[in-house]
């Protein structure tokens, strides 16, 4: 019993639970157990104050900085326009507003008197130096997976920041901190991540960063009524600060399934060609990841993309369909040009006075390049002097390159053929002349 409780709570309690072991009634046992447990957890020991070491090896600080970027620590611990890591960012949760705390080494308002031991306990157990529970808005359910070495590096980094004397803003959560112990007993799974030997080292590195310090699931996994991530729905999309964090698993709403390359580019630069640009809370995450080594960003991308377990064929189908929808939508822009410039004659058809060929029947729409059609539209079909032939006016000058591109895209869609690649490029070439 004692051991069980110690395992779920994870901290070294002085209280012994052995004397309850003979009680057989399950509900009584639970009630008493919970009460004793709350009491015991609510009184974690404080860790002795220290004068923190002021110097650390340069490499360790650099490593800590990189990890702090991966963890987007600033997201909560730096308010916009405020001093770095001095806290104050409000995080609105369904339970109340929690403010990111001052984690600069200021001895009074920051964590300047925290030893590495206290820092490690906060990261792994969600308990501050004084022994009080931290609300799990601080994602120690993820950070608990970080290695000793990484936590020490983070410690070296924060302890070498500029100390800022700035009082913490507290929180508006109406629950006593003791209740967090119950939460921890159910949802805090301690211990390192077991590497998957069947996967590459890169994937395992990604898994470690994503599940640990990166705490991606904190936003991208839905939470239950107690605010814990639903582990059986991991990465299926969550809510954060009024934004929806899209699913990263097979239910990813991305019209085009992500590739590792696209994800890496997105995480590093905030935009990938065939995907949306970062917005909302993700902007800060990418800002930080832009300063992380390519290797780690790629590892993160590798792991995240692997969460989508759809087969290559399924992904290709989804991708093709999305591209086709995008082309069709794009073609609608050309529709407006067609209505004004072409429809008058071409909707009449050859049979009518002044009518011209119905364009879905046009050969120029079906050949593998848009060049023929572009030439015809720009230069018209003008008979040589003295010859009788069909005739079409030239639209050179009347249509901009962009309008011509839209029109060509639309006409190609009319033909029922797959879209031409790089219509804009072909138009540019033709505009420049031979």
């Amino acid at each position: 019993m004692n051991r069980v409780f110690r395992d779920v709570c994870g901290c070294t309690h002085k209280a012994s639970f052995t004397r309850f072991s003979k009680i057989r009634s399950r509900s009584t046992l639970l009630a008493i157990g919970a009460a004793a447990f709350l009491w015991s957890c609510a009184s974690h020991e404080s860790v002795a104050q220290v004068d923190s070491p002021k110097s650390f090896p340069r490499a360790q600080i650099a490593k800590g900085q990189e990890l702090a970027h991966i963890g987007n620590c600033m997201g909560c611990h730096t308010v916009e326009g405020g001093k770095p890591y001095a806290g104050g960012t409000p995080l609105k949760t369904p339970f109340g507003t929690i403010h990111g705390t001052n984690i600069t080494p200021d001895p009074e308002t920051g964590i300047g008197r925290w030893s590495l031991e206290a820092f490690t306990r906060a990261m792994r157990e969600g308990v501050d130096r004084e022994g009080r529970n931290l609300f799990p808005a601080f994602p120690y359910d993820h950070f608990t997976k970080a290695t000793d070495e990484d936590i020490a590096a983070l410690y070296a980094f924060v302890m070498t920041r500029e100390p800022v004397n700035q009082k913490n803003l507290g929180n508006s959560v109406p629950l006593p901190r003791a209740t967090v112990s119950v939460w921890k007993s159910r949802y805090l799974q301690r211990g390192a991540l077991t590497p998957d030997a069947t996967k590459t080292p890169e994937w395992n590195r990604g898994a470690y960063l994503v599940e640990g310090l990166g705490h991606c699931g904190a936003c991208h996994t839905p939470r239950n009524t107690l605010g814990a991530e639903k582990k059986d729905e991991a990465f299926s999309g969550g809510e954060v600060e009024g934004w929806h964090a899209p699913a990263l698993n097979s239910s990813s709403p991305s019209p085009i399934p992500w590739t590792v390359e696209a994800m890496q580019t997105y995480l590093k630069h905030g935009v990938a060609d065939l995907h949306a640009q970062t917005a909302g809370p993700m902007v800060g995450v990418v800002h930080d990841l832009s300063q992380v080594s390519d290797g780690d960003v790629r590892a993160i991308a590798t792991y995240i993309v692997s969460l989508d377990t759809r087969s290559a064929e399924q992904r290709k189908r989804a991708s093709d369909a999305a591209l086709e929808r995008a082309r069709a939508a794009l073609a609608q822009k050309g529709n407006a040009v067609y209505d004004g410039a072409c429809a008058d004659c071409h909707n009449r058809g050859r049979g009518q006075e002044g009518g011209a060929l119905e364009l879905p029947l046009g050969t120029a729409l079906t050949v593998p390049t848009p060049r023929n059609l572009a030439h015809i539209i720009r230069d018209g079909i003008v008979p040589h002097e003295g010859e009788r032939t069909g005739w079409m006016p030239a639209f050179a000058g009347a249509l901009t390159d962009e309008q011509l591109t839209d029109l060509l895209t639309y006409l190609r869609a009319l033909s029922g053929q797959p879209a031409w690649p790089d219509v804009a490029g072909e138009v540019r070439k033709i505009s420049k002349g031979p």
Partner: protein
Amino acid sequence: MKLDVNGRVQDVEADPATPLLYVLRDNLGLNAAKFGCGLGQCGACVVMADGEAIYSCITPISVLEKRKIKTVEGLGTVEKPGPMQRAFIEAQAAQCGYCIPGMMMRAQALLEKTPNASEAEIRSALQPQLCRCGTHTRILHAVVRAGELMRGKS
């Protein structure tokens, strides 16, 4: 929608598919550009868009938003004709005059791009502009003269 004609941005209430020619004449009261064939064959309706000669009878206003349209009214006034207009008056290039606005605008587009256009280049550029009266020779003289005036030769 808004159209920029001769440097004045004006609100136009018309179907986006309406040809520019109708909007110029019926909505904006700019009667220089003429309706000839309505098919972009004769050149009587030619005006400029972003420096290029276009057939206003076949160009819908939907493609002209935010582009600079220029008509003969933008070349000068009766009291103060521009170089192209002065040259056409000097050369007495008009017979019936119906084709002249289109001639002037295509010539203007040419000279704005190629100030030193040769006579051969002028002939080639004006090829799509038809004149039933047969004043081609005078028109050619006028355009050559317009080039001189634009280059500051009096």
